[in-house]
C-alpha cells in the first residue's frame, strides 16, 4: 500500500492510491457497525486539529475519525484574518508541535497554506489539508468520490473506480476548493466532469482544466448526468459584481423544484454543505430520495479514518521513525 507522508492535494494521488483509499474507507465504515466501534490502531498518536477558519462539521468529522482509531485529539482554533502576518501559521504550528503531535489537520484561509507548512521544515508532523483557501479540500473530494462509487456500485464497490461516470458541478467554481478537488480526483478515477455557472464565476483559466464548461444549467441537466453537485454560493459575491442578486442567481443556476422534476430518473444530487436552501438548492431537492447529502456526511468520517491510518501508521510515517526497533522475526 502506498505510504502517504502528507495529504495536501488530490493531485498527489494516482488512480491506484485513490482507489485503495476508497477501499480502506469501506473497512472503516464497517467499524461503525460493530459493538465497539473503535480500533486501537493509532493508540498513542496525537492528532492536532489546527483550524484557522471556522468549520464545525469538518472539525467534528476529523475528531470522530481520529478517536475511532484510538488516537488522541487536540483542537486549536486559531482564528484570525487570513491576511494577517505569517507569524500565525509558523508560530502556532511550532507551538503545538512542541507539545508532541504526530499529525496536523490544517484548515486555513490561504491557498497553499498546507503545502507551505509541509515544505517549511517548521514541524516534523504529517500535514493533512482540511481546506486551504480556494485551492483544495482533498478529504471532501475523496468522500464525494466514495459516495458516488457507493451509489453506483453498491456492495460491489471495493476495487472499483469511476470510469464512465458523468458528473456536473454547478455554482461558484472560481472560489470553490471543493470543485477543484473534485475535478482532479474525478478525472484520476476516470469520470468526466462538466462545470456550470455564471461566466463571472468560472475561472479564466478553466479552458486549461480537463473539463467541459458552460453557463446553461438546463442544457447541462438535459444531458442526464449521473451526478449533479450543487455548490454553495455566498451572497457576498453580489457585492463584488459577480451576479446581480440572489433571485437572478437562483433562477439561472439554482436546482429548484422545476429542474428537480426534470432530472433523469437515475441522476443523483450532491452538495458539500452547508446548504443555502432556496438559493442554489431547493428544500425539496435537498431532501429528495436522490439526495446523497447525508451520505456525504457519514462517509466523511470513514474517509478521514482511512487518510489518518495511511498517514500515521507504517514505518514510513513520522510515528514509525520514532520507534526503536524491537526484537522481531
Amino acid at each position, binding site marked *: *500500500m*502506498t*505510504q502517504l507522508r502528507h495529504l495536501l492535494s488530490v493531485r498527489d494521488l494516482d488512480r491506484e492510491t485513490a482507489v*485503495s483509499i476508497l477501499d*480502506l474507507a*469501506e*473497512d472503516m465504515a*464497517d467499524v461503525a457497525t*460493530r*459493538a*465497539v466501534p*473503535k*480500533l*486501537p*490502531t493509532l493508540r498513542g498518536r496525537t492528532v492536532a486539529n489546527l483550524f484557522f477558519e471556522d468549520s464545525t462539521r469538518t472539525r467534528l468529522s476529523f475528531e470522530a475519525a481520529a478517536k475511532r*482509531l484510538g488516537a488522541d485529539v487536540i483542537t486549536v482554533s486559531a482564528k484570525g484574518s487570513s491576511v494577517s502576518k505569517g507569524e500565525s501559521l509558523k508560530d502556532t504550528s511550532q507551538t503545538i508541535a512542541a507539545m508532541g503531535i504526530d499529525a496536523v489537520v490544517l484548515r486555513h484561509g490561504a491557498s497553499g497554506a498546507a503545502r507551505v507548512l509541509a515544505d517549511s521544515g517548521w514541524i516534523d508532523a504529517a500535514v493533512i489539508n482540511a481546506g486551504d483557501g480556494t485551492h483544495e479540500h482533498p478529504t471532501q473530494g475523496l468522500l464525494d468520490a466514495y459516495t458516488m462509487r457507493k451509489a453506483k456500485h453498491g456492495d460491489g464497490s*471495493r476495487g472499483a473506480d469511476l470510469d464512465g461516470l458523468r458528473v456536473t458541478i454547478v455554482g461558484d467554481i472560481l472560489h470553490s476548493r471543493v470543485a477543484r478537488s473534485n475535478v482532479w480526483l474525478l478525472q484520476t478515477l476516470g469520470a468526466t466532469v462538466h462545470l456550470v455557472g455564471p461566466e463571472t464565476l468560472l475561472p479564466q483559466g478553466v479552458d486549461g482544466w480537463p473539463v467541459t464548461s458552460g453557463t446553461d444549467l438546463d442544457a447541462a441537466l438535459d444531458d442526464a448526468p449521473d451526478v449533479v453537485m450543487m455548490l454553495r454560493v455566498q451572497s457576498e459575491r453580489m457585492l463584488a459584481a459577480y451576479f446581480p442578486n440572489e433571485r437572478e442567481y437562483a433562477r439561472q443556476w439554482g436546482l429548484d423544484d422545476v429542474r428537480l422534476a426534470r432530472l433523469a430518473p437515475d441522476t443523483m444530487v450532491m452538495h458539500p454543505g452547508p446548504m443555502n436552501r432556496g438559493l442554489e438548492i431547493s428544500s425539496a431537492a435537498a431532501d429528495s430520495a436522490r439526495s446523497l447529502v447525508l451520505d456525504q456526511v457519514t462517509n466523511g468520517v470513514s474517509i478521514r479514518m482511512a487518510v489518518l*491510518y*495511511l498517514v500515521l*501508521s*507504517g*514505518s*514510513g*510515517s513520522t*510515528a*514509525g521513525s*520514532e*520507534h526503536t*526497533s*524491537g526484537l*522481531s*522475526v
Partner: protein
Amino acid sequence: MAARTVLQQADITRALTRISHEILESDHGADLVILGIPTRGVLLAQRIGAILEQLAPGTAQVGALDVTMYRDDLAKQPTRTPSPTLVPSGGIDGKTVVLVDDVLYSGRTIRAALDALNDLGRPRAVRLATLIDRGHRELPIRADFVGKNLPTSHSQRIYVKLLETDGQDLVAIFDEEDHG
C-alpha cells in the same frame, strides 16, 4: 537454497479433515463460527467449513477476521493494506468462535485477533486451529487444533501454498543460506 516439502496435497486434506472432526468432538452441539485470518487462513476456514457442513450440516458459519488494525508492529513495517472482515449473519455473541490460520509462530497475530474479536462482540468461547505450529511462541498462546507440529529454527522459513491462490497445495521449509 534448500527447500524441503513437508506436506503434500493429500497430507493437507487429511489434516483439515482431522481438525474438522476434532472441532466437532470438542464442541459438539455448539453454534460454531469459523473465522479465517487473511489471507490463507480464510481459505483454510472455508475448507473446514465445507467439511463441517458435510459432517454436521447447519452447525457452522464461515467468515473472515482481518487483524491488521490490531497488530502491535504497525509502525515497524510499511503501511499494510487491510482485508475485509466478514462476520457471518448470526454474529459471534454467544457462539464458539474457531480462529483459523495457516502458521502459528510468535502468537502475536492471534493476540491481535483476540482483541479484534473483543470489539466485535462476546463469544462463548474462542478456539484456535492452525495448519502448522512451528513453535517459538512469544506470548502465552496455544492452538487447540493443529494440523502438523513442525519444530523450526528462526533462520528457517515456512511456505504454505494453497490451490486457490497459488495453484497447488503444499507446505515447505526453506533454509536460509548460511551467510558465514
